[in-house]
């Protein structure tokens, strides 16, 4: 078997990913002696929360990306699942693994209940109706405090999942929680994958592209639209349960409406109607928190505000340049690569390869997010050096020409114009 055969490459990719997720991420702070490692426990917790957001993004993407129904209310589903889990774990003494299913079921039932009135609404009207749910959730949780413990929230630190026996001697609680979250996230990813590739997923896409045509093909449109809501809510509910385990604490203010809006941002930046996109979007969103760790901003309001201001700018640039999100950019890059000269292909692929090396090296020395950012910069700089002349030429001809050059067919790969996105990616979420 040749080392460069697609199968071998894929195998190596999976091996690298597994190494990264199972060993390097939770343990690597122990590797080089004497280096200032400020990213041990903190990085593990960040990664665990990223796993939780991946699950929410998957669920939301099934609803919005694949089925075309917009939701600004997903924090309510996460809160429902999280509270179900927390009440069962803290007040009833259930073990973590047993609460996953009730969390999904309760949240899914709420999703079903919302999905039925949502049948009549679309676009901004549906967005408003679901946002109402997210607005109401914290107030309801605070007001009816007999069950939810009100504003003080619920701590599950006594009843959360701990590592069994011999494993408990080698991993800390945070590392164990990370593995739990990772395991649940991987299982949910596989489930999502199967849903969107199967009969149900195709029905979702058909409804998104044209409800009338879907009905003509014999798809029960109301039933599948409601099912999409329920499935999406189940994902969010299970994510909520995992959140409770990872953070060990849950409170009404963990789930405000802004976070709901962020979920939507996540899947658009990652790529609508794409499993890879959901994962990439959720991870990149989590990294924004870390920007403040390596910018020389000091303490106080500057350290909090500057990363988010940058995030806003980045959001605009990404959406302008990659209408189909990161997943669309990757797909476009692959397409572009298939038609290149070997020399150009080497440079284009060498960028990401060197980027990964730089990312690992820098994050070992200075910290996780700085490494990822430097890696990304290296990769982009090398890969995009191929298009620098075209970009400069475009820039000399004015702003709109420059944007067009960036997005157009002669521009860098990954920057698709809306017209040439694959049909599977076209979203009717807003119509």
């Amino acid at each position, binding site marked *: 078997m040749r080392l460069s055969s697609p199968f071998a490459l894929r195998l190596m990719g999976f091996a690298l990913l597994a190494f990264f997720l199972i060993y390097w991420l939770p343990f690597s702070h122990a590797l080089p002696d004497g280096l200032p490692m400020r990213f041990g426990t903190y990085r593990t917790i960040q990664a665990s929360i990223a796993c939780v957001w991946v699950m929410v993004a998957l669920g939301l993407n099934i609803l919005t990306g694949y089925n075309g129904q917009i939701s600004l209310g997903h924090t309510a589903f996460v809160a429902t699942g999280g509270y179900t889990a927390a009440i069962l774990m803290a007040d009833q003494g259930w073990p973590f693994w047993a609460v996953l299913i009730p969390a999904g079921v309760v949240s899914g039932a709420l999703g079903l209940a919302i999905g039925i009135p949502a049948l009549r609404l679309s676009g901004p009207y549906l967005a408003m109706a679901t946002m*109402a749910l997210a607005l109401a959730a914290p107030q309801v949780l605070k007001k009816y405090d007999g069950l939810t413990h009100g504003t003080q929230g619920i701590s599950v630190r006594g009843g959360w999942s701990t590592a069994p026996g011999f494993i408990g001697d080698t991993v800390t609680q945070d590392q164990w929680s990370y593995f739990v979250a990772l395991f649940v996230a991987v299982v949910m990813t596989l489930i999502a994958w199967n849903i969107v590739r199967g009969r149900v997923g195709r029905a979702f896409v058909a409804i998104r592209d044209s409800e009338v045509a879907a009905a003509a093909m014999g798809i029960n449109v109301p039933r599948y639209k409601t099912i999409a809501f329920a499935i999406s809510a189940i994902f969010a509910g299970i994510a909520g349960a995992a959140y409770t385990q990872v953070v060990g604490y849950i409170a009404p203010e963990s789930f405000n409406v802004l976070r709901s809006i962020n979920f939507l941002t996540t899947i658009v930046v990652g790529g609508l109607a794409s499993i890879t996109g959901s994962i990439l979007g959720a991870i990149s969103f989590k990294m924004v928190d870390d920007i403040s760790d390596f910018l020389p901003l000091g303490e106080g309001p500057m350290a909090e505000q500057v990363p988010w201001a940058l995030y806003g700018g980045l*959001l605009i640039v990404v959406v*302008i340049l990659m209408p189909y999100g990161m997943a669309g950019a990757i797909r476009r890059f692959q397409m572009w690569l298939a038609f290149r000269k070997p020399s150009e292909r080497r440079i284009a692929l060498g960028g990401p390869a060197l980027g990964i090396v730089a990312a690992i090296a820098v994050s070992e020395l200075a910290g996780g997010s700085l490494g990822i950012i430097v890696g990304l910069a290296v990769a982009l700089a090398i890969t995009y050096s191929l298009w620098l002349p075209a970009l400069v030429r475009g820039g000399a001809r004015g702003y709109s020409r420059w944007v067009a050059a960036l997005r157009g067919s002669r521009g860098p790969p990954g920057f698709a114009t809306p017209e040439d996105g694959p049909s599977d990616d076209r979203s009717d979420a807003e119509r």
Partner: protein
Amino acid sequence: MGELLQQVAAGLATGSIYGLLALALVLIYRSTTVINFAQGEMAMFTTFVAWTMLHWGPYWLVFILILLMAGALGALIERVVIRPVEGAPTLNVIIVTLGLFAIFSNVATIVWGGQPQAFSHYPINDETVKLGAVVLSVHDLAIMLFAALIMISLYAFFQYTPLGLAMRATAQNSTASRLMGIRVGRMLTLGWALAASVGAVAGMFVAPIVLLQPPMMLAVILYAFAAAVLGGLDSPFGAVVGGLIIGVTESLVGTYTPKEWLGPEMALTVTVCIIILVLVIRPTGIFGKRVMRRV
């Protein structure tokens, strides 16, 4: 009875603010089918600029200058960041407005700090006026007056001027308008400029009530969105009515429902439940046009 009227009047005053911002949302939605989530933060930003300028000039001069500056800001935003995503899926444009939201709210905190500031140079004082059984502050009256004034002048602008006609045409059918010689791009820019100015007025009136601070428009923009949706997103009249309905409902629910299991803390929840109910009955809002779809 007096109590009821008083609550209704208070609701109408806050409702006018929601209505003004909702009006700004509708102005943009009509021409580009985009909800501008940054509307409130843009208004907050211009209000902060106004606060800085008030150290140098009289209120009404600053007020007019701010309207112009807000218009310029709106036009600039449309040209620089909205124009490039014109052909993209609507969701992408919404994400761009969310990016603007993050930029404005955080830049405002960086520049002016997170502490609440009193909007102290405000010329309208706290005196109250007695209208029959209802006691209203001059400020509340001014808000309602301005909301009405803006509504009427916008109505006149859209109905009786050639430019307004061109803007309405663009909103209705941009391809046909372009064929008729209307500069569609300019109309869109103008729409954003108008919306930003209307939003700036709302900001100038919110600031004296809630103290000037970066998150001050957060709740207002959500209510305004609710108001615009409730009224029907393509109807400017509906936006204002929606705002008034929400303001009054909230005020009444807070006062007249049993404190044990509802009361003021749940006013928002009850209000949004009512909105959902209205939407289920009328899926395109109270005054929204029903969309017929050709297959």
